[in-house]
């Protein structure tokens, strides 16, 4: 499917080796616009918004980064820990600003579920509704993410 040139530019920056070693698209051969549309629909069917998911993830990310690599427990439910590197990285959509290079490792204390994401992942979800391509190392399936954050089960919202 055709897409605006900005998305094509962003897609080029998401390639393997362009900004990061693994890129953001994984083995997903779809165009960026289709990935965005697909995930947008999936998030809405969960009755959630990108902003909701990003805000919840941002809270965990901030807590993890504030503890400089030491594990920290949030809400008696999540244990998060950051693996920070030096340096910052840009957003592939060309968004101004740089994002801390780090991994956040999260674990649900009750279910034992684990999830790994980066500060840039949170921005990509919140600002662009981008959950990365299938097979990308930091791909976050909306359903899995909502489940991990304990935000599932609200069902589609009613809009009149």
């Amino acid at each position, binding site marked *: 499917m055709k897409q605006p040139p900005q998305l094509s530019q962003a897609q080029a920056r998401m390639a393997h080796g362009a900004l990061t070693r693994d890129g953001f698209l994984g083995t997903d051969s779809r165009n960026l616009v289709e990935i965005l549309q697909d995930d947008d629909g999936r998030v809405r069917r969960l009755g959630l918004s990108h902003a909701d998911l990003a805000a919840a993830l941002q809270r965990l990310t901030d807590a993890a980064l504030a503890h400089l690599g030491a594990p920290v427990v949030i809400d008696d439910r999540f244990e998060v820990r950051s693996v920070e590197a030096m340096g910052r990285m*840009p957003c592939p959509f060309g968004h101004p600003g740089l994002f801390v290079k780090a991994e956040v490792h999260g674990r649900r204390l009750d279910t034992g579920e684990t999830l790994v994401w980066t500060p840039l992942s949170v921005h990509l979800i919140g600002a662009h509704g981008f959950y990365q391509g299938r097979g990308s190392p930091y791909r976050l399936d909306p359903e899995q993410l909502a489940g991990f954050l304990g935000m599932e089960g609200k069902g589609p919202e009613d809009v009149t």
Partner: protein
Amino acid sequence: MGDVLTAVGVLVGLGAFLALILVVAERRLVHSGPVRLTINDADPVEVPGGEPLLSVLRERKIFVPSACGGRGSCGLCKVRILEGGGPVLPTETPHLSPEEIEDRVRLACQVKVRDDTAIEIPAHLLEVEEYEVRVEAIEELTYDIRRVRLAFGPGVAFRFRAGQYVQIETPIYDGLGEPVYRAYSISSPPQDTDAIELIIRKVPRGICTTFVHELLLVGDRLRINGPYGDFYLRETPAEAVFIAGGSGLAPFESILADMAARGVRKKVTLFFGAVSRRDLYDLERLHAYGERLPGFAFVPALSHPDPGDDWQGETGLITDVVARHYGSMEGMEAYLCGSPGMIDACVRVLTDKGVAEDRIFYDKFA
């Protein structure tokens, strides 16, 4: 038959005419011939017109730092354009403050050199050169940190100030498209001019650190450029605090060795923050400076020691350890090297404790 020829002739003629216009237009508009570029009041040099300033400078072996490869998203390649450069582009405005725009600061990757241009760049960038080096030794410091010793060729003396950094050009590997540059602080003293040491921590999925940790072997050749940065010890009477996290110990090892070699006297305390014992390295070497440097103290601290670590030293976040250690820190200097998160947290604590903001030093690349 004649009809066909006319038809072909008209089409070819039309195509050729339009192509000609485009070629002329491109000559005139895009590549506007050689223009004069003046750098820091030196004599103007002729450069091809129409190219981004960043690549023009790189062609001339002037390496303006850039993290995004000229895509206008990192905002690091700021230079002052005194003459030429055209209007500020929408791709630049997000990275520039109103004061910077007033001051004619621009992003070198976005500005195209179309007319005679005069620019101003930090003088130390002019001293940056490219070197080919040989990997002389690789030492495992922890499970994810390596010390790499890079030797310059015979007859090459690499001069730098303790605390500065170099960029490694990561060769193309694993199907990656283009070489990338990553910055690493030098940990060896500036008195060694025939080789430098870098301390490199493996970054999850990092382009360059994965290469260094998984593919680099003793004897390999690498290209580096440097030295960069104004992170060096201010030789003032003020007491200084050094705060390092992870591989951020590197510039401090260089600075301390330099202080010992030159007999610099300054009251310095080095805090080294890590999570657990397995993240610590070079402890004996650093403790030993306590005897060689009067006024030096070394405080390693663990934020989350493993039960088996048998840790007797300081515990807690490095910011808390520093805060506990001092009452008021007014009049002191602070030198920071570590992850951006650590630096941000330290700057908050230090300013709360009374350290003046312009007395807190750290490298922007972090």
